[in-house]
């Protein structure tokens, strides 16, 4: 792979990443090298989770935030709409994906880079990499700050083909970082494993035609219900025998009646948006309900963890 021998500047200054305001500043390079392989990468290859996540995010929101830190890569969606925003927190451990990973943040205490970009761009760039022999991601400044994704494609002929995507990014200043931190997982009343997401999606899709107001409820006996109620009709779908993960708080779960449902009223469109993006069934999928407050979905796709929060109707 030709990119390995390429030199690149490391930590040319104490300043990390890019400072907002543009202009010519010393650039920090963060280079992420991905393992090379001479085989055609199938859909469930190492790259798929990252490409799949970015494709899913592209369906959820136009822009997303990418947080780069020494151990992790995070995709963050933060909706600041006052009436009840939805937010998503997605995490990848960089060592599971990249052969080489170097970055340097603003300072030792604030060792992270926050970038805002168009999710569609990243999704398209990673989609090209489905048949990649090698992939390299760099922070560059080509007239404007960019995340440059360079992909060496597999080619039947002797010469290689190289695709380069320059994704314009906006560097998020440190003062805004506080709004982009990992949301605290709420103490839930009920924690339950989700049914097959595709099934759930087709049901929710049909329900959306009847009402925008969905009630999601579950108990500690492995039962989950999706309900919509209108003047003319009530429709409920019952899922049984789903199983409940072992509770974090033993006391709370022992006190709770296993049959008692915890429910949240949510906007069905937000749930559908989330389900529509799930192409593949995750390794693990848990739903945590805080009565009348919030629904928290906790998914694990291979080595990518995904958390999605839907607040109750206010």
């Amino acid at each position, binding site marked *: 792979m030709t990119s390995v021998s390429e030199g690149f500047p490391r930590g040319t200054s104490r300043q990390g990443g890019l400072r907002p305001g543009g202009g010519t500043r010393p650039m920090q390079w963060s280079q992420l090298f991905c393992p090379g392989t001479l085989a055609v990468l199938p859909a469930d290859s190492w790259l798929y989770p990252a490409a799949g996540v970015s494709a899913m995010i592209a369906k959820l929101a136009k822009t997303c935030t990418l947080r780069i830190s020494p151990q992790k890569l995070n995709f963050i969606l933060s909706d600041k709409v006052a009436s009840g925003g939805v937010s998503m927190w997605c995490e990848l451990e960089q060592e599971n994906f990249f052969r080489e990973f170097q970055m340097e943040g603003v300072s030792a205490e604030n060792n992270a880079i926050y970038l805002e970009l*168009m999710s569609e*761009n990243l999704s*398209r*760039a990673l989609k*090209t990499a489905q048949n990649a022999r090698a992939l390299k991601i760099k922070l560059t400044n*080509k007239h*404007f700050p*960019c995340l440059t994704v360079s992909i060496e494609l597999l*080619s039947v*002929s*002797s*010469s*290689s*083909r*190289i*695709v*380069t*995507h*320059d*994704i*314009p990014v906006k560097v998020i200043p440190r003062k805004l970082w506080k709004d982009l931190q990992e949301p605290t997982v709420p103490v839930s009343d009920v924690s339950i494993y989700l049914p097959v997401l595709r099934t759930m999606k087709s049901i929710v899709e049909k329900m959306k035609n009847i009402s925008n107001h969905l009630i999601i409820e579950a108990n500690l006996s492995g039962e989950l219900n999706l309900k919509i109620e209108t003047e003319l009709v009530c429709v409920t779908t019952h899922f049984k025998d789903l199983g409940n993960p072992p509770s974090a708080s033993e006391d709370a779960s022992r006190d709770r009646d296993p049959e008692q449902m915890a429910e949240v009223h949510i906007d069905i469109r937000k749930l559908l948006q989330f389900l529509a993006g799930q192409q593949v069934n995750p390794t693990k999928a848990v739903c945590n309900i805080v009565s009348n407050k919030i629904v928290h979905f906790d998914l694990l796709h291979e080595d990518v963890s995904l958390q999605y929060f839907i607040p109750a109707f206010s």
Partner: protein
Amino acid sequence: MKCLVTGGNVKVLGKAVHSLSRIGDELYLEPLEDGLSLRTVNSSRSAYACFLFAPLFFQQYQAAAPGQEALRCKILMKSFLAVFRSLATVERSVEKCCISLGGRSSRLVVQLHCKYGVRKTHNLSFQDCESLQAVFDPALCSNVLRAPARVLGEAVLPFPPALAEVTLGIGCGRRVILRSYQEEEEADSTVKAMVTEMSIGQEDFQQLQAQEGVAITFCLKEFRGLLSFAESANLSLSVYFDAPGRPAIFAVSDSLLDGHFVLATLSESDLHSPALCSPELRRLAPPLQAHSTPHLDDFANDDIDSYMIAMETTADSEGSRAVPSISLFPGLRPPCSPGPYSEDNEAEAGTQPETPPPKKFRSLFFGSILAPAHSPPGPSPVLAEDSEGEG
């Protein structure tokens, strides 16, 4: 005119119509001695496309009834495309396609003979028209590259479907580079577009004759029209080009047909962009006007009944924004099918006419320029020129 297409060729014909529909809204159908030609031009006159199907492509081909002049016509692309709308259905169920013009009907009749005895007849209204022909000679272009359509198809895959323009050039190390072209945005534009670049080694090309650093920018959407045809027919696609600003010629051919798409390219204004080793191209003044460029000599040519569409070269008041020109002269055919006028062609092919006096052209255009011997028979008066002249 009467021709019969059978078997897999029906789908090929349908695919060609789909390609042409990416360019223009009107289809010019002209049966010639060396085959049936389907041509179109776009509304801004910056793209011209032509498919010529040789007589052997058809099970039966009769350009004109014996003793009669060949009829030619212009139909709405939408109407003709509707016949071949679903290529999957065409492939699955159509056994024969018969196209006829003239005779009893004052319509262009397209009859599809399908499985189970089903017959679909389309009667399309048409307008008589002059011959739409372009003058271009790939042999005069200094740069050419040729590759299997599959290679070029893979090359454009990373680009977003909505991307309007792309720059094709030769980069360092004889690599062929395709890069998304963005118009210059306002300085304060907060939403910058993603730039995608694809670099292919020369080994993937069957022919590459071009200098390093040369590059042209053209409309990707229009190019995709020919590319998808070439991919489905598994043909090689050749690109002939010159300096930026001169039209680029994209061609496919096999023993039964050939296709040419002639697209305008952006003219350059400054030279930098080290990565591509090529000029950075700036926005072209849109759209090209439909004024035509008369070379008065041409009216003395034999086939005066053909009219001209020319894409002009104008010097924009701001300076060097030259619009590329394709001059269409009467009676001249593309060199791929040398006809009796080929000797005349060589002198005029590829000439860049000067800015025409529009009024003068119009007055010539609207008048009767038909030599009586060549006037097409037919009940409908020739009305096409008016709308063409207004552009």
